[in-house]
């Protein structure tokens, strides 16, 4: 079968009625997550994993995995659409990836052009989504074929690259990010060792035998941590919303934003593929690029439409681009994709080069559903933007307790253990403190998800080479990955020493 056949099969499974509903619910919740400041795509996806797991419980395993990932991915890219809404209307970005949109978006809204800013943001996101999907389809086969040639040594080095890249860009301090990565990897060693069957750090407590559940940690650190922050740091906010009038952009505005959308999509896509660099960086860089090549840079910051079109396309393209290393190599390049990967592994679906061979239904079903999801988002966002903007007025007094209740319900439904709930609560408190003191959480989750694979590949490689570490440095591909890892970690530090501002990738 060629790619087109696979894609058609993918549409076959994406168009099953319940998968359409899953995609719709996913993008709907995603948009809401994007609009609400405080809940980012990471906590949104983490919070929904247990809920989807219980809903899909009745389906056969492969179909359950397809439906679940369709919904969860929908939340991820849906959030990219939603983030722009509040940036433009309220000057409060709903996501870190929409921070730059406030610069020109809010100015446009002030001048009474909120409608066109919103619609250009939605159109840009849509175009970017489709561009990256096509690139994903084209690149999926060759990349996974290439990855199939990797041995355990190459895989180990590639995973180190993924971990290193995320740590290098994750926070203000590389040391702190690395500490979090190592903590994640250490947490992953708890439980029965897969290779030898020996229990490690279990202290003969049966609850620890199966290891620390990634879901509990992720929901606790992200969702509950964020909730506790909102409770402790209560802010009085005034919600002065700009009026939306005339949603249809003029021909001139469309013409003006066509080129920025195209540039933003391509730039965002490539930044998205890079491990560690995500939607936030993509939107930031594309804004800088537009400002540099503009004929009149002074217009930026006063309501230039290119300043909305480019970053909004870029962040969406980056979220699509980030799916490529996840699906083809099995290496998540960001916190959110790490959580998606954890979700797939809960269904016993291992992302990576074999995904397209072993579970074509999951892989192509997801890709096809992203087409459908993007169309749904465009339709949803244009006429319903006023409704979504209302979500931000949801009183926190109801939202916060409900998030706690959903976290507890979700973790209990999957784990059926009070110990996990206690761990969840503990992680919430720890997550609040870590976040407050600039310890990035994404590397920890990435380490926790990748830990077993890093270790298994290391041990497999060392067994093949009879305990010799040399081949890691003599095999060219492996050496290349290792050099890139070192560069990724060292360059930001060097740049900081020279007093340059390093853009970091914050994910919420």
């Amino acid at each position, binding site marked *: 079968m060629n790619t087109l056949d696979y894609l058609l099969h993918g549409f076959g499974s994406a168009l099953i009625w319940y998968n359409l509903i899953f995609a719709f619910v996913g993008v709907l919740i995603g948009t809401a997550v994007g609009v609400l400041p405080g809940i980012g795509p990471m906590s949104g996806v983490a919070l929904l994993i247990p809920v989807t797991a*219980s*809903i899909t*419980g*009745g389906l056969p395993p492969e179909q359950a995995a397809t439906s679940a990932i369709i919904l969860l991915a929908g939340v991820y890219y849906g959030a990219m659409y939603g983030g722009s809404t509040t940036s433009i209307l309220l000057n409060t970005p709903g996501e870190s990836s929409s921070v730059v949109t406030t610069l020109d978006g809010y100015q446009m809204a002030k001048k009474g052009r909120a409608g066109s800013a919103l619609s250009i943001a939605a159109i840009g996101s849509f175009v970017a989504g489709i561009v990256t999907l096509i690139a994903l389809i084209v690149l999926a086969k060759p990349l996974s074929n290439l990855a199939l040639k990797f041995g355990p040594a190459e895989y180990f080095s590639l995973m180190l690259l993924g971990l290193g890249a995320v740590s290098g860009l994750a926070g*203000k*301090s590389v*040391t*702190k990010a*690395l*500490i979090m990565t*190592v*903590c994640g*990897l*250490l947490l992953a*060693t708890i439980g029965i*060792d897969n*290779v*030898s*069957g*020996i229990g*490690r*750090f279990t202290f003969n407590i049966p609850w620890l035998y199966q290891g620390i559940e990634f879901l509990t940690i992720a929901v606790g650190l992200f969702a509950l941590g964020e909730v*506790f922050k909102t*409770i*402790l*740091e*209560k802010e009085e906010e005034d919600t002065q919303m700009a009026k939306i009038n005339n949603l249809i952009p003029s021909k001139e505005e469309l013409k003006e934003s066509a080129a920025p959308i195209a540039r933003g999509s391509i730039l965002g896509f490539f930044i998205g593929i890079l491990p560690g660099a995500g939607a936030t960086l993509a939107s930031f860089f594309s804004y800088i690029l537009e400002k540099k090549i503009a004929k009149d840079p002074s217009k930026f910051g006063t309501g230039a439409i290119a300043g909305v079109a480019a970053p909004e396309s870029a962040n969406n393209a980056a979220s699509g681009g980030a799916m490529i290393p996840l699906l083809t190599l099995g290496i998540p390049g960001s916190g959110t994709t790490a959580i998606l990967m954890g979700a797939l592994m809960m269904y016993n679906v291992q992302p990576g080069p074999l995904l397209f061979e072993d579970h074509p239904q999951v892989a192509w079903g997801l890709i096809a559903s992203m087409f459908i999801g993007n169309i749904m988002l465009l339709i949803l966002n244009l006429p319903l933007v006023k409704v979504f903007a209302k979500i931000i007025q949801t*009183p*926190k*007094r*109801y939202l*916060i*307790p*409900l998030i*706690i*209740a959903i976290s*507890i*319900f979700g973790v*209990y*439904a999957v784990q*059926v253990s*009070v110990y996990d*709930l*206690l761990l969840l*609560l503990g992680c919430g*408190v720890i997550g609040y*403190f870590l976040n407050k*003191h*600039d*310890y990035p959480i994404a590397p920890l989750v990435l380490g926790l998800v990748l830990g077993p694979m890093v*270790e298994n590949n*290391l*041990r497999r490689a*060392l*067994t093949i080479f*009879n*305990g010799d570490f040399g081949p890691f440095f003599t095999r060219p591909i492996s050496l290349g990955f290792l050099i890139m890892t070192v560069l990724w970690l060292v360059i930001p530090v060097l740049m900081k020493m020279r007093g340059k501002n390093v853009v970091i990738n914050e994910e919420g």
Partner: protein
Amino acid sequence: MDIKFDRIAAILFLTVGTLFIIGSRNIASSSYGSVVGPDIFPLFLGGLLVILSIRLFYETFSGKKQEKEKEKLQYMPFIIIFIATLVYILTLESVGYVITTFLFLFVCFQTMERGKWLTSLFISGGFSALVYFIFVEVLKGTLPGWPIWFN
């Protein structure tokens, strides 16, 4: 950067790293048919964590002292909600989902903001009943429904 927090954290991470090193020394060092045993990876990571935490501790000395902004933290609601969550978790299995969730939500709603008793009652009742109905009746999941002494 809060230097005090970072120093305490560095010491904590140092302890964790050391404990992992000690812990992995107690794991059998070799497994049958493999050169590398299950102890190597955690041993190495523990060592790495120790080095990194020493580095973090060292960094706290060179870090610039920042003006401390006194933020007003809302301790009272946080403590109430934290305790409510703890009680909720611990009583979930014996008292059952519906009652505990209802009480938990109601307490939290009122802690966040006083007043509007009826709305609070309605939302907390509606949520707990709806989740229980959908999950247990429709999806056939497992949740402790009602107090154990009922059955």
